[in-house]
Structures are given as C-alpha cells and as structure tokens.
C-alpha cells in the first residue's frame, strides 16, 4: 500500500543522502522524494512516497527515526491529510489541436504559463492521480515533455508536524 511519510531533518550537508542511502541499503521503495528548507532555516522538510506492507512501513519509520539527523517522522497516511504535486507539461499546440489543448487545461484547472506558435507549457497541481488522469486524457503524441515534483503532503486541521 502507498504511504506518504513526512519528516523534519537537520538542514545539514549529507542529511538527504542518509535518508536516500537508508532506502537503497534496506531495499525499500521510493516513488518520490521531495525536500526543501522550512521557515526555520535549520530544518528541512521531506516528503517521501513509498509503498510496502504494514510491517515494511513500520520498519521504514523506525529506521528513519534512528537516523541521527532526523528530528521527527510521521506517516501522513495514518490520518487525514492533503497531498499535492506540481507538474509542468509541454504539449504540441498547433492547428485545430490548439483550442482543444486550451480547453483540456481549463477542465483540469491547469494554467498555460508559456506559449509558442506550436506549443503550450501547462502548469498543473493536484494529487498524483489527478496528474496521471490529465496525461491520460491527452493524446499520446501531444505530450512533448513532462516534469513532476513528486508529492508534498501536510496533515489536515490541527495535525501539525513541528519541532
């Protein structure tokens, strides 16, 4: 089953490779991993999308907690949470397809952020599933390039991950 794990870690050189190294050394999956500094510059926040049985996920959170640079770990999937991912898609947009492409972007609440006479670049945010759905809705030949950030997650309501 898919899990979204959020962690706060010391914003220090090498902290990212400790996490990444743990996943490869112990054979855990990483579907995506995002990391950036938080409002407190000494801390980074990381979101890892992974999958595995309950036992494996339990081990992942325990092993992450064991890393000296990791301050806090939470499995967001255990409760209500919000997940968002950003995707930029460059699509072919010429001739009769140009208007159709604009409509598709609107339907998915995407924004066209770069235009040439032959292409659009569309910015889209949402859950991973929504981004997948958008790509599926496009004709395969129309997609020239995609780039996705991987998911970021946050707990709903009063569920707060802070030091």
């Amino acid at each position, binding site marked *: 089953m898919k899990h979204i794990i959020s962690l706060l870690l010391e914003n220090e050189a*090498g902290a990212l490779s400790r996490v990444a190294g743990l996943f490869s050394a112990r054979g855990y999956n990483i579907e995506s991993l995002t990391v950036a500094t938080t409002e407190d510059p000494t801390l980074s926040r990381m979101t890892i999308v992974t999958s595995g049985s309950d036992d494996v996920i339990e081990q992942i959170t325990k092993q992450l907690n064991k890393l000296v640079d990791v301050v806090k770990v939470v499995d967001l999937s255990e409760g209500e949470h919000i997940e968002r991912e950003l995707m930029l898609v460059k699509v072919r947009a010429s001739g009769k397809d140009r208007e159709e492409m604009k409509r598709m972007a609107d339907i998915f609440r995407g924004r066209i952020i770069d235009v040439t006479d032959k292409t659009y670049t569309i910015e889209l945010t949402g859950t991973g599933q929504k981004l997948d759905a958008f790509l599926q809705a496009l004709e395969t030949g129309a997609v020239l390039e995609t780039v996705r950030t991987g998911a970021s997650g946050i707990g709903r309501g009063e569920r707060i991950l802070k030091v």
Partner: protein
Amino acid sequence: MELTGAEITVRCLADEGVEYLFGYPGGAVLHIYDELFKQDRVKHILVRHEQAAVHAADGYARASHKPGVCLVTSGPGVTNAVTGIATAYMDSIPMVVVTGQVPTYAIGQDAFQEVDTVGITRPCVKHNFLVKDVKDLATTMKKAFYIATTGRPGPVLVDIPKDVTTARCEYVYPDKVELRSYNPAVKGHAGQIKKALGLLLEAKRPMIYTGGSIVLGDASAELIELVHALGFPVTNTLMGLGGYPATDPQFMGMLGMHGTYEANMAMQHCDVLLAVGARFDDRVIGNPKHFFQEERKIIHVDVDPSSISKRVKVDVPIVGHVKDVLGEMNRQIAATSQKPDPAALKAWWTQIELWRARDCLKYDRSSPIIKPQMVVQKLYEITNGDAFVTSDVGQHQMWAAQFYKFDKPRRWINSGGLGTMGFGLPAAMGVYLAHPDAQVACVTGEASIQMCIQELSTCKQYRMPIKIVNLNNRYMGMVRQWQEFFHGNRYAESYMDALPDFVKLAESYGHVGMRIEKPADIEPALKEAFARKDQLVFMDFITDQTENVFPMVPGGKGLSEMILV
C-alpha cells in the same frame, strides 16, 4: 588561548578520558600526530594495518566499559579501516574513529589520498561528521562520544580536513551536548512490563533468550536474578555468551546454527519466549517460517525500537535499556505472590533434560589425532574459565563458543554479526590493554590468523603476552564443512596450501612458537604457554582435518531440523 585544530583534537581525547588511541599516521593527520608526540595523557598504540587499529579499539571497548578510539589517515587509511568499522557497527560497539581528510579547499578535486570518507562509511556507522570549521571541532568530538556510547551503541566517525588541524580557535570542551534529533534515553513502559510478567507467570513452557546487550548493557546481574526467581531455562546468542553463567544448571548453552540441541528444541517448542537484547537473526532462529509453525507468545526487550518486529512479529514489545527493564521485572516479581505453575515447569524441565541427554556436543575423546574441541576444553580448564578469549571466524569460533564456558560477561570477544576473519589477534591487543593483568587468549585458525598476522609486530613492540591458540586443520574449516555437506565434497579453494611454519614465523617476530601434534601434548603446551607470563606464545595445534561443527542447522532450515553428530 587559541589552540590549533590538531591540539584541540588531542585535548578532546584527553579530556574525554581516552586512555589508548589505536592508529597509524599519514599525511592528513601529521599535525595531530605532532600534538600526540608533545603530550603523555593519551597513549598511542601503533598498529601495522588500519583494520587492526579498529579491531584493537573494538576489543578494548568490548572488554572494558569504555568506547574504543582510533585515528587513521585519509584515503587508504580510511578504506583499510572500513572492515573494522563495519565489524563494530554490526555488533553495536561504542567507538569513535577520527580520520584525516585532505584540506577543505581540495575536497572534491580527486586530491592525493582523498576519498569521500563520510560517504563510504555512512552505511556502517551510527553517525559521522565532516568538520569544516575548527570552531565546530570540540563540540563535534563531544557529540561523537555522546552518540557512540548512548542508546544502542555504535561507531561514530569524525573526519577532519588537514587545514582544520592547523586553523586556530579558543578551546572549550563542553561538559555535555544535547541534540534535538537524538534522544536515546528510554525507560521501559511499566504497563508493557506488567503485561510481559503476566505472560511469563502463566507460561507452561517458558524460555528466556538473551543477546549481546546483556553484556554491553551491563545487565548480567539483573538477568541472573530474573532467571533464578522464575526458575526458567535460559539460552544466550553467540554475542550474549557470558551474559549468563555457562556453568549454571539453568543455562542451556548457546542457541542457533551451531547451538545446542536442547537450546534449539526449547526455543522451537516454548509457549512463551522472553527475548532480551537479541534480534532473531538468521543464524539464531533459522528459517522464520519454520519458527512460526509453533505457536508462542513473544516478549521482546530492546533499546532499539527498529530491532523489534524486524524479523519476527512480537506480542509484547518493550523499548528500553535492558538493565532497567529487567530490574523493573525483578521488582515486580518480588512484589507479587503469583508464582510460575510448578507442575508445568517440572514437566518442561523433564522434557529439556531428555533433550540434554542427547549430549549433542560429544566428540571422540580418544582420537590419536588432536580434536579441536579438546584444545578448547583444555584451554578452559587450564585458565580456570577465567581468561578473556577472542576469536576469529569459522569452525574454531564455534568450538570456542561451545566449549569454553563463560561465566562472566565481556570475556568472550568475537565478531558475531559481520563475521570478520582477522579480528581475533588485534582484538586481543585491545583486550590486553584493558586488562593487562588478565589471561588473554586468541582462539584462531590458520586461515583467519593470516588475515592480520602482521600484528605480531605490534604485540612485540608493546610486549603483549597474548596466547594464540591456532587450530590448524589446513582448511578453511567452515567453508570445507559447507562444501562437504552441501556441495558434494567439492573443496573449491578451501585448502590452505603453502602455509608458513608458524613456529618460525612467531620466532621471527620475537615471540615463542610451539607446534603441538599429539593429544597428550595439549595440556603441557598450554601450561607452559600460560606460565610464560611476559611472552606471546603462538601455539600451532595440528588438528583433525575433517572434524565438523555439530549440531548444525543448515541454511534455510528450521531450528529443530539440526544435523547431529
């Protein structure tokens, strides 16, 4: 007054109370060595290979209550040390490894003797640091000792670039450090302990299984009290030997791949299992699927939460220092009037005695060729069971574990987790320095000993009167045994050809060498060796080439599927 980074490094070690520093100099650590030269608080032990520096520090740590400390140079100094670091990591040994690095401005330039030390060692240390600013040096050293010695112990590495050792700043060694991301102190959950006791007191076929953290966590007294109060059988892992007195009637011997028949059978057939500071690894429970064919309740006490429910699901997890948890259990047992079911316990012990009667460790005592088991047995007798025994890895290690009855913790020193050949001799050097008046023996084989044989030179320099018991069967015995059992007697590359004359080899290093070929000569040789109190004696015992270690649980098999002699 401002000090250089090199001075600070040495001052930190001295202020931390470091007695011995095991190391080998090189370009990147020259300034540190210069400062070592100018002081006499920290004694440096010069090894002949960096791997041995780490093993020696490791042996020192295992035999004492202090962290082992070593110092090596950048590049090959570090890569040579990696085997030692991984060995210590697998067995949770507290250790601080200081490494030299090329100057900060040269990092990443493929400079002479540069490797990415922090990167290379990351998977085999508890934590590591690269110190880029001399102002961080003292605090980082303090953090290293703090992390290495608390919680589940382990090696911590501090990488110091050469220009940091010449930069200057004020020296203040902090009394203590706090890390918001590292809070190892945990007390066992009182409710869970109560629940565990409930299960134990209700048990019909109880079993206690303990590992290395009884030894490392100084919890032997608490374990003995608990086992005696409950009247249950107890077994130790290879790492846990000495945690419970081997001569006590409630002791079942070691369990696992080469454990005793009674320990493995009791482990398989118990209905309540108390596991303390052990991790159910593949060499201990064999195939986990087979282990779970029998139903039992498992209580698992460990300081590291990630050790719990890693290989087996447990019913009552207790995270905490084993000493505290066992102490609390003892208090609760003393306070309750409930006792274990005497009839059930009596029936269980009757069953155990039947298993014990198999005499699974029997061997041919009247053989005209030296049986390796007999050498260990005689070693046990002649040292009154009171020696510190290190070992290398293979058959001799298992025979030492089976036939030397350790009654006290920290006496049995071996590489259980990583299984590092070459560990025994340098580890014995560290043990000797921790206990200079004790008897120190290294039980080894002709294959293992050659992996760090150069340390005979270190032993000469520092007059370390270690007694080397070389069980020489002219084979990599354990490899040969597996080839006999599982590879149709095809002894691929396991024959030790072109062996040196170990007597002459020992003599050429300035030690005493002996070659023993007859069973009748075992005892006199050992007696003579231990009578030479100030000399290292290398005893080369020519043993039965085809002797195998029994019992044996073949890889992938279940605990009760042992091959017996």
